[in-house]
């Protein structure tokens, strides 16, 4: 059986992706240290609180209590690194053309639903895909927009007077804080799904995010996910 080593992830994408990991982790961790000082959010239905962010045991377990000053120190230092790394990533996507792989296209929503059905074995045939399937397109584009949203709501909370127009855009100071919090929860949910999906996708896929190349069986149905050669010029 023949195999190919197909280039999958450019060097810049890999470095920016992995550098982002410690930065966003530190932003979430320091965000928790800050949030503890005023932990007001929860999931409520008809005034009944289903879940409170967060239970006391959670703070005790992680040793989060009374560390507001430390949280603000970390948050307002690493915010620059997180934002700059994210900005470089977006610029790289645009300049390199990699945006083509993650921008949702007409029909993405429908195909993404099929991807989910295929993942849980309800649908037998995998929907068509490019480098990424449409669920990935939507997820990866969303997470970039979430990053931008976190930066902007963060700035709105940080400078609510000098940039009051931005704070007003998010519905005022309290709503900006609420959004900032829920975007973080969404990041954590994204992360959990991402980890599960990477684990399910297997070693070759994970390895390609480190090495940049993916080893592909030439005898497989498709030479690389999504890229068939049916319409190759002859």
């Amino acid at each position, binding site marked *: 059986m023949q195999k*190919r080593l197909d*280039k999958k992830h450019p060097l810049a994408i890999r470095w920016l992706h992995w550098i982002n990991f410690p930065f966003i982790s530190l932003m979430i961790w320091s965000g928790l240290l800050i949030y503890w000082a005023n932990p007001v959010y929860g999931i409520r239905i008809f005034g009944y609180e289903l879940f409170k962010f967060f239970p006391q045991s959670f703070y005790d377990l992680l040793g989060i209590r009374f560390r507001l000053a430390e949280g603000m120190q970390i948050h307002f230092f690493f915010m620059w690194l997180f934002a700059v790394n994210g900005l470089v990533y977006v610029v790289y996507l645009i300049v390199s053309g990699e945006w083509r792989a993650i921008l949702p296209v007409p029909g993405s929503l429908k195909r993404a639903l099929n991807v989910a059905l295929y993942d849980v074995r309800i649908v037998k045939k995998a929907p068509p895909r490019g480098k990424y399937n449409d669920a990935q397109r939507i997820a990866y584009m969303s997470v970039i927009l979430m990053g931008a949203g976190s930066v902007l709501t963060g700035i709105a909370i940080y400078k*609510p007077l*000098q940039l009051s127009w931005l704070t007003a855009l998010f519905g005022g100071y309290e709503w900006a804080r609420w959004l900032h919090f829920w975007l973080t929860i969404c990041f954590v949910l994204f992360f959990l799904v991402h980890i599960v999906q990477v684990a399910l996708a297997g070693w070759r896929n994970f390895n390609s995010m480190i*090495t940049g190349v993916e080893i592909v069986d030439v005898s497989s149905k498709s030479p690389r996910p999504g890229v068939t050669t049916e319409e*190759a010029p002859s």
Partner: protein
Amino acid sequence: MSENKEALVEKVREFEERTGHTVDSYPGDPNNTASILGERRRLSEPLNEADAERQMFVRSRRSFLTAGAAAVAGILGWSWLSSETKAHLYRRAFEFNERVSRIFFRPEHLAKEFPPESISAIRTNGMEGLEAEVDLAAWRLAVGGLAGRTDDLLLTLDDIKKLPRIEMITEMKCIEGWSIIAHWAGARFSDFVAAYPPQAPPFLSGQNVNDRQELPPYVSIATPDEKYFVGWDTPSIMHPQTLLAYEMNGEPLKPENGAPLRVASPTKYGIKLIKRIGRIEFTNERPRDFWAEYGYDWYSGH
């Protein structure tokens, strides 16, 4: 996999080599969303299995070593920094953020004012410097650093009330993350400065005459017992919404809210809105600040 498809892979590669440009997409292929936006393909030379696995192993080893070295360097480097170095780094970051903030600071940027029905319940926080009883009759405001005198000027509350009375309904934000909306009445700090002008900072030789500052760059404010003290930068304290307040929600200040005189301002977090002012000093040195000494941002400006 049919022989047919394998041959097609070869054909694509040959085509690319022959014409010198890559096949970017497959227009019209319904099974391939890569065609929609024209994603670039990166097909490589097919290799026999042993060669492919060996090359992949070499690549993996190199990449994992690089990644591992970067991760270890990052973690070790960070834990190698002493807590003093980190504290210093974080303080420098706060100071850098302050410089950036001050570039964008405009006194004409005003905080939103709210209608009376928005006023929220009072939330009292921070009793540092308020432990002793306050004798309102004996209270005087000491002011240091005024033009033409070296000793403190002592003012009564009536002296402050003689200044134009300003009312505002603004949002007070605690550094803990909550906020309330309150109705304040008092004198603008800028009106206070106009009535009691401070000593201008010394004119340094070699300084451009246009850079001459009329006001000292900082103001230090402390409670009568000096147990609570804050430092303000002059632009923030001269902001038109920074008040020396004597009324809150239509009543004279209560002791726990800062009677008889406190700072009210939407320009900074509540930690800077000192209650029960005992002394104000105009100064050229960056003043000490109670919470900054516990690692909080000295500027804490909005």
